[in-house]
């Protein structure tokens, strides 16, 4: 212990096995950087393909007419199905998040988080099958059934996102409200929720972006429709973008392929803008809350 392992007066150049350790760390760093670049490249290639093949199909007519020239019924149908799903998933998701962060004890809260994560991990085809058995079997396909399936997919995304922002609300605000003799639920409505509202909206938009492109359950629940006409009746199958893309790609029709790529471009643009916009909004509300 008394002997120093190196000469403190020696020049500060690599000695011993430092050269080898430096080499190893260089290789590890290169590997990690490469993997990250690869992930970015995948996204870039997908977007490039969709844009290059889909752009030619895009036109004003394409967006506002029905099949065979346009996709307006599918856009409206998807908007309707997703809106209905959001109307179902958002209240439940936000209330579940409030329960976990504001009311539940430690153990219960861990259990509910785990449950939500497990729902999030369910394959969407399984959710589709479940809703098929529940609402479609012995009845007919419907936009409503599709909404229920999408709501189940959105629920954990909204609930976990809302939890995250509710946890960011400083505890000192809850204490302040407690110390004023205000009941907990009023505190949630008057202080906690308003502070977390931005983040809750963000996670909802992210969930919408995810649900808009969900295909597997819709093939089971909402695929026998007439793509030529607008249909706002959710008690029957209504046109929607993902299933329409699937159908057009299955047909041996070059025009259909072009249209499928055009629809993909519309869908991908919506999802990208929604996600990026939501993240920007999230960053802003986070800054506002933590500053």
């Amino acid at each position: 212990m008394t002997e120093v392992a190196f000469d403190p007066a020696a020049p500060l150049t690599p000695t011993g096995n430092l050269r080898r350790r430096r080499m190893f760390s260089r290789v590890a760093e290169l590997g990690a950087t490469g993997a990250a670049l690869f992930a970015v490249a995948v996204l870039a290639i997908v977007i490039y393909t969709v844009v290059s093949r889909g752009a030619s199909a895009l036109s004003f007519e394409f967006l506002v007419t029905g099949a065979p020239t346009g996709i307006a019924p599918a856009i409206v149908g998807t908007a309707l199905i997703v809106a209905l799903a959001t109307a179902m998933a958002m209240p439940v998701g936000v209330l579940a998040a409030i329960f976990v962060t504001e009311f539940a004890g430690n153990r219960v809260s861990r259990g509910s988080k785990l449950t939500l994560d497990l729902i999030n991990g369910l394959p969407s085809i399984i959710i589709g099958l479940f809703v098929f058995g529940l609402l479609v079997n012995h009845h007919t396909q419907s936009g409503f059934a599709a909404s229920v399936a999408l709501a189940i997919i959105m629920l954990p995304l909204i609930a976990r996102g809302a939890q995250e922002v509710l946890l960011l609300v400083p505890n000192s605000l809850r204490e302040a409200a407690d110390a004023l003799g205000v009941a907990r639920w009023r505190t949630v409505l008057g202080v906690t929720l308003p502070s977390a509202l931005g983040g809750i909206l963000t996670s909802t938009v992210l969930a919408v972006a995810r649900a808009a492109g969900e295909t597997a359950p819709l093939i089971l629940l909402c695929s026998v429709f007439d793509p030529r006409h607008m249909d706002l009746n959710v008690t029957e199958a209504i046109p929607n973008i993902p299933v329409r893309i699937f159908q057009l790609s299955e047909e041996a029709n070059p025009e259909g392929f072009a249209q499928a790529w055009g629809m993909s471009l519309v869908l991908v643009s919506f999802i990208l803008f929604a996600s990026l916009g939501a993240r920007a909004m999230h960053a802003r509300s986070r800054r506002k809350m933590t500053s």
Partner: protein
Amino acid sequence: MSQRDSTQGPGGALPVSSRVRIQSGSLPHPAGTVAGNGAARRELGLESVFEVSDVSVFYGAKKALSGVSLRIPRSRITALIGPSGCGKSTFIRSLNRMNDSVPAFRLEGQVLYHGHDLYASNVDEVEVRRRIGMVFQKPNPFPKSIYDNIAWALRNLGLKHDLDDRVERALRAAALWDEVKDRLKSSALGLSGGQQQRLCIARAIAIEPDVLLLDEPASALDPIATASIEDLMHSLKGRFTIVIVTHNMQQAARVADRTAFFGLDASSGEPAGTLIEYADTETIFNRPADPRTRDYVTGRFG
């Protein structure tokens, strides 16, 4: 402890009253009242608001506070001083049940508030805090306008008439009115630290509590803001019973009528905070009975 009466079902269910909101003016009496302390309450020549007897506080297995007994007189300022980690904050938070939300919190002993057991099973902690307000170490205004910071609790408690008037009175009492009267609608987060803390005090007194608990209200403030908070305490004295935790001994000497010195007591195994000496402020600072108090107030604490 629990009072048995006709409302109690055969299955031993809680009395109906235990869950309903109690009207202001009376805590439910029977369960918590302990007979025979009326005489003791006058021992100081003053009516006591709190009578704390042999209170110990545990967080899980850890003992944070051990065997504290004291009386807090009405309409006076009582200061709690002592080194860090000796249970002052734990103690003051036990006076309005703010510790209830701390996991594994447990209290032994008895805290009487105007003769009612604060920890009786039929006492509603929301009602407790409505009467015993608290201001925290770090200013914690709501992210709302200055006006709404004060009006929000008033509205929720049903004190809706003369709202503007109540807000103005609270701000005046907290010596903040002149500084904010022209920007009541702007965010409270734009105020300086000292102003925010006075806003928190205004918020606490707007609901007209009986007691004001201040947990190191000036520790995050500069000397000028501290001085204005101290002036404020002097002006509030008489209207409210004030209990203040402070690290600053000069502050205790300046504002308090009674001072309690807390310290660590390791006599029974692991060290826990405890009350070492409690007397008039003048006595504590000039003629302390306990050598530990003397060492602390003269700055010789090791």
